[in-house]
């Protein structure tokens, strides 16, 4: 995956698989500190320490009770190569938080890519989840909370074309206004 936004999509898909009801995605671009921070916070079923270790490095144990992917180990390696890192905080029954950080200006840092497409994919694909997308660039912030929208829609699906257009443009405009650098 060549975009951080695709990694966010992948991590959030794990949260969906873990039956999370509430998923928050944070992106913080701090130019003064030269850091790019991202987090996916869920209230899914969580993992015990052994499972966390295997998610971070699928080759540490020979136990193969559950398949784990390579998405997180690859993202961790990418972050570490850019003076950053990845941490997982998780507890069974509580949820999982995955945080990843990069040196913003690092030459090897992969581009952020399209947050709007990632957010829209999650929102449409898993409408039963309560989504919060929280993007901050220096002093400017854009927080998208889908709850008031779903309340207003009152059962009309997000995939009705006029609704879809509204939500897509809402996300695109919000991200444009905080001047997030997606390259």
């Amino acid at each position: 995956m060549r975009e951080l936004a695709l990694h966010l999509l992948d991590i959030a898909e794990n949260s969906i698989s873990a039956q999370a009801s509430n998923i928050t995605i944070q992106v913080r671009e701090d130019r003064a500190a030269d850091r790019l921070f991202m987090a996916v916070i869920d209230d899914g079923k969580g993992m015990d320490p052994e499972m966390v270790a295997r998610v971070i490095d699928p080759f540490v144990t020979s136990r193969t009770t559950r398949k784990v992917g390579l998405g997180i180990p690859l993202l961790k390696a990418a972050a570490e190569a850019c003076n950053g890192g990845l941490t997982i905080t998780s507890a069974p029954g509580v949820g999982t938080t995955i945080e990843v950080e990069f040196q913003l200006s690092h030459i090897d840092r992969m581009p952020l890519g399209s947050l709007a497409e990632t957010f829209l994919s999650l929102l449409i694909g898993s409408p039963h989840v309560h989504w919060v997308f929280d993007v901050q660039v220096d002093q400017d912030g854009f927080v998208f909370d889908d709850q008031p929208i779903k309340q207003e829609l009152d059962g009309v699906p997000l995939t009705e074309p006029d609704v879809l257009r509204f939500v897509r443009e809402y996300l695109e405009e919000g991200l444009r206004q905080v001047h997030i650098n997606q390259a």
Partner: protein
Amino acid sequence: MDKVKSLEDLKRIREEALKKRQAKNVSGQKEIVVGMGTVGIAAGARQTLKAILEYIEEHNLTDIVVRQTGNIGLDSMEPIVQVSLGEGEKVTYGKVTPEIARQIMAEHVVGGSVVKAFVVQS
């Protein structure tokens, strides 16, 4: 944020959407599922989903449900898209590029005929 749309806009959009839905004879739900596991995403599933959503917007298609699913178990065939029309059988398509997605939307979801060239056995 003055230019961002308001919930007032959404209220109007909702009412119009409801009218359109009622005006139509609901002939069973059309469902499109896109595989969004790690392999699917790496193979381009987000672009495939985007193409499907764009098609819905461009052609004003109502009464379509689009959702995601995790790994379907056909890694070499990702991105995977599954289509079911009403009570009809679920059809699984493999290696669905945005272009193929648009073809599936036109011929299968709108036209009702399966695009045989891209069907995989699931």
